[in-house]
């Protein structure tokens, strides 16, 4: 009986803590999560993730972690970055829904996609 009570109490406490965490996330944690969710890392001649889905009006940031420069260019001329050296960033805000194929205009075998919905 005591054991059952103890277990029941532990579950209740656990649930309470979980509820607190879910209902009151810290502001910084949620913003970090949002930011990294809209980032493309460029490294080793690849875009990671290769396909990224973001909401309308989301801002995607490309970060070049490679040891050579890259240029982010949309297939249809919608956006194009300057030459990004190592650690340089480029951001673009997608105000219209759609699928945006892009590539590195210097190393055109590198391709990626942003899906805005």
């Amino acid at each position, binding site marked *: 009986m005591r054991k059952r009570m103890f277990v029941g109490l532990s579950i209740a406490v656990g649930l309470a803590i979980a509820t607190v965490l879910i209902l009151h996330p810290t502001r910084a944690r949620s913003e970090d999560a949002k930011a990294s969710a809209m980032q493309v890392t460029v490294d080793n001649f690849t875009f990671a993730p290769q396909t990224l889905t973001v909401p309308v009006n989301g801002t995607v940031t490309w970060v070049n972690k490679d*040891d050579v420069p890259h240029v982010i*260019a949309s297939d249809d001329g919608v956006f194009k970055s300057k030459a990004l*050296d190592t650690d340089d960033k480029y951001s673009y805000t997608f105000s219209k829904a759609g699928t945006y194929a892009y590539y590195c205009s210097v190393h055109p*075998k590198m391709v990626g996609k942003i899906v805005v919905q």
Partner: protein
Amino acid sequence: MAKNKLIHPDANGVIEHDHNNDGIDRRGFLKCMAWAGTGALCVVEGGVLKSYALGSQMGSKMHSHKVGGMTFAQISDSHMGFNKPANPDVISTLKAAVDKLNALPNQPEFILHTGDISHLSKPEEFDNVDQILKATNKEIFFVPGEHDVLNDDGAMFRERYAKNSKGAGWYSFDKNGVHFIGLVNVMNLKAGGLGSLGHDQLEWLEDDVKHLKSSTPIVVFAHIPLWTVYPQWGWGTDDSAQALSYLKKFGSVTVLNGHIHQTLQKVEGNVTFHTAFSTAFPQPAPGKAEGPGPMKVPAEQLRSVLGITDVNYVQGRHALAVVDSSLA
């Protein structure tokens, strides 16, 4: 259809050859190329390749044999401005390449630079290279690499290195009866594609060689390989086949490229394709790494995987003798 093999000078084991019925002993040629890293001189004599170590007596006889022929050099991929672990000091290695050029017993008459002069298309990077190459005291002909045209569609490159060129920077000139063609295949690259010459340049090329005698030796130089080395890494040119079709009539065509930062050679009929060392950093052999980027080697080995190319033309012979030598 004759099979054509990729030859890497560092390959272990047997070097395979292919047979084309043009009287050239390819087995000798390819064995010769394996010596390239040590600085051997390969000369075509009566269609048969003989190799002479650069220090030997016969070698020096060959060196002085300049009747109706000429020697020029190729350097590539100096990437001035690069400063990552693969080579934190590209200035020193470029200077070492210049020393190597100046020490060649048979001095080249001029030099071809097959692009990626700079790393980030910055004016000071071009200035540095110009300053260092002054010490060669030679005329230098440049074609751009993709690193030279990053911000302005090549306007700065053309202003500095190709004032009398057409379009994106292509041009041709003649030396000692050999016709040289500088091509640009790093502009207007399409998503998922390889290097690209483009319609205008191809039309110009067709016209440029139309009236030349088929006995005129042709040397084509461009940054990205004009043959498909490894498409997964972009090592090839989408429309090079069309360019080569305009050169079919010629008995001797030599294609000199850079971009891949390693020496590779391929012979296909009358065309010899060759890619050069970089003077800045090596890159992995096709497919041997995750990507084609700068490859770090132990510091003491760096100069053995960078180098220059010496090209010798003897009048009346088919193939030009192309010799790579590493910096160390």
